[in-house]
């Protein structure tokens, strides 16, 4: 928990720094005259990973996950983008011990709203995704919840119950930034709001977590997430 907060704080600080540096660039734009010749844009597939998932895998004993992110420039402002990943999340209280495990992919578009000063290639973007996950849920242990403490202790049901081949579909909108820190290497951060469109819920149980979507709050179809991306553009051509 504390480690998670430290990670969050670290990332927030990084983003603020990125904002400041982007702001500095914007100010410069206004001062320059447009005497720069032949502006070109770099095209090519940009691949990377989500550093938050790596950090959580290292520090959070109830979580492991890995995600590959990718995008490809279509026009000056439009990018086709997506993520593919795998996650495992354990949930444990005094009454329930459960594991969710599965894979997901997301596909959609990003739109860059930022006007770069040539030859910079930074992004302030918004985008949307459609996500799909295939996963399993396992109840490892359960203990009946009682308010009365009269007959204690309640025996633990250690009978493992696995619900396989569950799936979910959701939509996401995101806002983020991406900055080229050295040639073709980008750091970025984005926030995502998600809406669960459909899910297979197990009989007499519920999906507590959906890989790629995140934690499910009771009777709530809204989810959220954020990621810190490190990515590299494999340059194909300039135009």
């Amino acid at each position, binding site marked *: *928990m504390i480690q*998670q*907060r430290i990670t*969050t*704080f670290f*990332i*927030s600080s990084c*983003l*603020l720094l990125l*904002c400041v540096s*982007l*702001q500095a660039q*914007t100010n410069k734009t206004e001062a320059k005259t447009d005497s720069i010749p032949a502006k070109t844009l770099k095209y090519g597939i940009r691949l990377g990973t989500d550093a938050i998932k790596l950090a959580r895998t290292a520090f959070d004993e109830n979580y492991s996950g890995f995600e590959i992110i990718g995008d490809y420039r279509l026009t000056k402002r439009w990018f086709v983008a997506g993520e593919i990943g795998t996650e495992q999340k354990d*949930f444990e*209280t005094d*009454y*329930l011990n459960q594991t969710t495990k599965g894979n997901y992919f997301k596909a959609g578009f990003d739109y860059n*709203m*930022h006007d770069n000063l040539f030859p910079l290639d930074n992004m*302030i973007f918004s985008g949307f995704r459609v996500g799909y996950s295939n996963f399993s849920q396992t109840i490892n242990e*359960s*203990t*009946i*919840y*009682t*308010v*009365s403490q*009269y*007959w204690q202790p*309640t*025996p633990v*049901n250690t*009978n493992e119950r696995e619900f396989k081949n569950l799936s979910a579909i959701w939509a996401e909108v995101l*806002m*983020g*930034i991406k900055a080229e820190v050295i040639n073709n290497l980008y750091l970025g*951060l984005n*926030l995502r709001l998600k809406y669960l469109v459909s899910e297979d819920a197990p009989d*007499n*149980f*519920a999906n*507590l977590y959906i890989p790629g979507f995140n*934690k499910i*709050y*009771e009777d709530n179809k809204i989810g*959220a997430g*954020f990621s810190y991306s490190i990515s590299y553009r494999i340059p194909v051509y300039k135009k």
Partner: protein
Amino acid sequence: MKHLKFISLCLFFIAISSCEKDDICSESKATTPNMVIDFLDVVDRETPKSVTRIRVKGINPDNEVIAEYNGTNVTQIIVPLVNNVPDEETITQYQIYKDFEIDDNGTPDDSSDDFETGNPDIITISYVIKEVYVSAACGFKAKYENVSITVEDENTTGLWILDQEPTLDNLTISDDTTTHYNLFH
């Protein structure tokens, strides 16, 4: 510039809200029910009849007397049942005294020679437990199926509970808002 401010603001809120909501089972959730038992008149079988100076105690070496039912006059008791792993036949036993009193044996200052008087009967409640999912924080609650009660006398004082019957056939206890069983005396 607007975008930058918007994003920084969003980030700030994410950063401060990243402490997860505690996973605590809310008290407003209906969880494992207790069993509701009414005492009725054995002749006029629809009239509640008070049990004088009742005392209810779970039969288990460590169990204490239930505080609400220690020498009080009641027409209804609400008692918890023993929970076990699901799908197995489980029993809960209570010793129920009528006219319970502690006789001080003529020596009010000396509690070592006190003894209990009254008429104890033992009820045995048998049932099968099913797990019912509530929420992530509460986990599962119990539901009790095929509930039945048998009554036996504990010593030679004779049965004071003369008859018993469930309010429904194939009684299932899934909440504790209505009476589940009637005991006649």
